[in-house]
Structure formats: C-alpha cells, structure tokens
C-alpha cells in the first residue's frame, strides 16, 4: 500500500490516513481534458456531449483524446490488479500533460483521485505521476461549481427532481454536496428528498452480476423510493448508477426515468432540448 497513506515500514501497523482537508480549487483554466468513461461512451454519449457543451459555455476549450478507454475500475474492484494496472497506465500516459481532467462520473473520478494510489502502490516513480493526476482531476459538478463558479439563469419550466449520487463518489468526492449546490442555482428546480437517499442503488460494478438477487433487491428499493419522492425524474452524475436504475425501471415497465445531470443542466441553462 502506498506510503502516501501509511507508515513507511511495509510491515508496520497502520493508522488511517488523516481526514482530507478541504480541497483548494484553482482558477478557471483555458483548457481541460474530458475523460468520458466507458459507460458513458457506449450508453450515454449524449450526456458526455452535454458535459462538453457546459464546459465550453464557460469559455473552456475541451479536449477529448480519442485514445481514452476505461479508468480500470471494473478489474480493480474485481481483484484483477495486473489488468487494472495496465489499463490505468494507458490512461495515465494519455492524461500526463498537466491539463485538468474533468470526469462526468463520480466513481471514475474517484478512481483517478483515490484508487490509482493503491493500484500503483509498488511503483514509486509512477506514484508521482498519479499524485499529479489526482491533483488535477475534477468530477464534473465539482468543476462547474468550484472551478468555473458558474452563474446560471434557469431557462426551463418549474420542475421537481430527485438526485441520486453514487456512494463511492459521495464518500470519496463529496459529489452529493456539489450536485445539490449546483441544482440550488437553478431557481425553478426543486430537489425532493427520497427515502434512504444515501443508500447504495445496488450497482457496485460486477456486484450487480455476481450477486443479482441482492443487487436486485437494492435497486428495487431505490427505484421505489425515487418514484415515491414525487419527483418527475431522477438525475445523477454517475453513469454506472444511471445504467442500473434506468435498466431496472425499464424492466419494471414504468415511465419514470433518470438521466445524467449534465443533460439536465444543459437543458436548463441553454434553453435547448438536450442532445
């Protein structure tokens, strides 16, 4: 495990890392890289495009390297370290240019910021680059809120929505706070609380296929509480959760749906129908 977290001696008794301090945000940069994530790439590409538009609207030039693929999280959480490391290294090489990286999915951003340290724990040289990447990685809502400090005019009709945040992202990245604050800037949007809001939706990557019965019970409960909230739709900034929740809703043959926060935000502030 990384020396950044723990005592230097490899077999010394460990203590937990200190509480993360409040992150210092840089001024708005002229350019960023968007890391689209594999789930968004294949299943929610329009949301990725809306994220690009939201950034461009703030006067930022967005790069989308065509060589990008996946952050490596599926292999990492499944215990396949070597495979995770290979894929992670490919992204690290690609993003190794000092440019801020914006990720429209909390758990993938968390992978860059928190878990690459563990993935490359045995490689001190790589760890320096990992630290550098961690410092300039931002989840989309965090970036819009704290770096761009967006000031928006809400051009949409009054609506009520429920917000779901990925568990790992909320715990690693505070995404629930960022998303709530961003939504708070839209004066005609009311965010409704739902029952057990902080509870996992049951995705958990390969968990949902390894333990489909338990995961199914979790997503059933989640979709029910979202629908019971009275909201007309759910928004989330995490592709995995969105795929899980929408897939379940579709299977249940109900009309209620979730969509990516980027699409929702773009629609509200541009006045255009999202792509």
């Amino acid at each position: 495990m990384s020396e950044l977290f723990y005592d230097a001696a490899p077999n010394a008794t460990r203590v937990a890392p200190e509480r993360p301090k409040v992150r210092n945000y840089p001024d708005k940069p002229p350019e960023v890289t968007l890391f689209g994530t594999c789930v968004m790439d294949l299943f929610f590409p329009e949301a990725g495009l809306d994220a690009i538009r939201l950034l461009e609207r703030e006067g930022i030039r967005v790069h989308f390297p065509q060589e990008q693929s996946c952050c490596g999280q599926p292999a990492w959480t499944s215990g396949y370290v070597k495979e995770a490391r290979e894929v992670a290294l490919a992204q690290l090489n690609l993003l190794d240019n000092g440019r801020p990286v914006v990720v429209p999915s909390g758990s993938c951003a968390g992978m860059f910021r928190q878990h690459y340290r563990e993935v490359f724990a045995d490689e001190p040289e790589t760890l320096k680059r990992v630290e550098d990447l961690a410092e300039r990685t931002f989840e989309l809502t965090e970036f819009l809120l704290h770096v761009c400090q967006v000031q928006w005019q809400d051009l949409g009709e009054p609506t009520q929505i429920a917000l779901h945040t990925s568990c790992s992202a909320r715990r690693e990245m505070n995404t629930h706070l960022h998303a709530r604050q961003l939504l708070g800037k839209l004066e005609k949007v009311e965010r409704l609380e739902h029952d057990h809001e902080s509870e996992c939706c049951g995705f958990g990557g390969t968990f949902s296929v390894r333990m489909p019965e338990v995961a199914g019970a979790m997503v059933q409960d989640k979709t029910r509480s979202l629908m019971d909230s009275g909201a007309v739709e759910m928004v989330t900034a995490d592709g995995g959760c969105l795929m899980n929740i929408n897939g379940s809703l579709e299977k249940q043959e109900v009309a209620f749906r979730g969509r990516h926060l980027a699409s929702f935000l773009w629609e509200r502030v541009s006045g255009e129908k999202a792509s």
Partner: protein
Amino acid sequence: MSARNNILNRLRTSLAGTEPRPDDFNETLVTEPWQYTPDSRIQRLRALMEAVQTEVHQLPGEQWPAKVQALLESRNLSNVLYAPGTDHGQKLAEHWQAHGARQDLVAYDRPVEAWKEELFWEVDASVTGTVGGIAATGSLVLWPDRHEPRLMSLLPPLHIALLKASEIEDNLYAIMQKQNWSAGLPTNLLLVSGPSKTADIEQVLAYGAHGPKELVVLILEDQ
C-alpha cells in the same frame, strides 16, 4: 506453554523491524467536549439518568435515611439490604432504630454462599454508596469492597444509590485521573447508568432484564 510461545513468536516475527507506535493520546478529545459548570453538571447527570428511567432526588445530606424509608413505604416493600460496615450503613441503621421503620433491615454480613437463595429471591431493595458520578454520561461509580459487596447493586429489584453532589465529575477521564484509578483498582469497579434494561426483542426497551428494575439516585447536597 507452547500455545503461548507460538502465538507470541508469530506476533514478534510479524513485527520484525518495526517500531512501536508512539502514545499520542490526546486527552483534550475526551475532556473538552464534556465540561460543565457545577450546576449544569448535576442537571446533566439528572437529565441523562432520568432519560433511562432512573428516579433522581436531590436533598440535603442528612435527610437521606428518611427518604429511603419513604421510598420503601411508597412501594410497600418489606425489607432492604444494607452494608452495616459502612458509614452510610450505620446511619441507616440508626435512623431505622430511632424511627421504628417497619421494613426489615437486612445486613449483607456473611458470604453469599451462606444465604444465596434468600439473597437471590427475597430481598426487595438495597442501599449502597457510590464513589462519585459522571455528568457526561449520567453514570454512578461504584467501588464494591468487603463492606459493600458486588451483588448489592445487582440482585434486588430496587437499588437506591447515594451520590454526593460534590463528587460528581465532568467525565470519565476526569474521575479516573482524580481518583488515580490506574494506581489500584478494586476487584470489581462498576459504572452504573440506569436500571438494568434490554432491547433484544424488536428493539423495544424493557427495564429489569436481569438486574434492578428500578434505580433511585439520591443526590446529597453538602451540609
């Protein structure tokens, strides 16, 4: 002793080349959030204990034996266990004699084996002292000894505890330091924070699981 040596050897092998961690115990973390003025100290202890169904009375120090008598009267109990070798035990006995109280005074003056059946089933109430109280958690500190045995605060359905107002401390750490516990503990030191209770069935709180069903604390003001 081979199990002992095997275990210790394995642990030592695993720690080879490492240093013990320093003692960075920060006492402010367990004291600062739990500090009170003398008045609020009593208020807090009362509030916390009452929240777990403890009956608390505050009274001038010399009045407690009469209060004990009244508590037994009102519950229509027929006997009370006391510790004759303690100061408060003697005071209780004197009061009983002077006022001709009708409840039997039962002295805990022989080993438990000599009267187990009676002690387990026939005693209605007990009176014990305490060596202090803790405001932060609403607790009494009991220091049983040969004069005031352990079972006195456990077996009777009603336990009446005497607590001097001046001996209520802010928090556990404070009383531990003040009384220098680490220099020598009794066979069985106890913190008691209410009557015995359980929530093992549906998390419904029920009092009187195995110990006292009722705890009455008499806070004695200085005379």
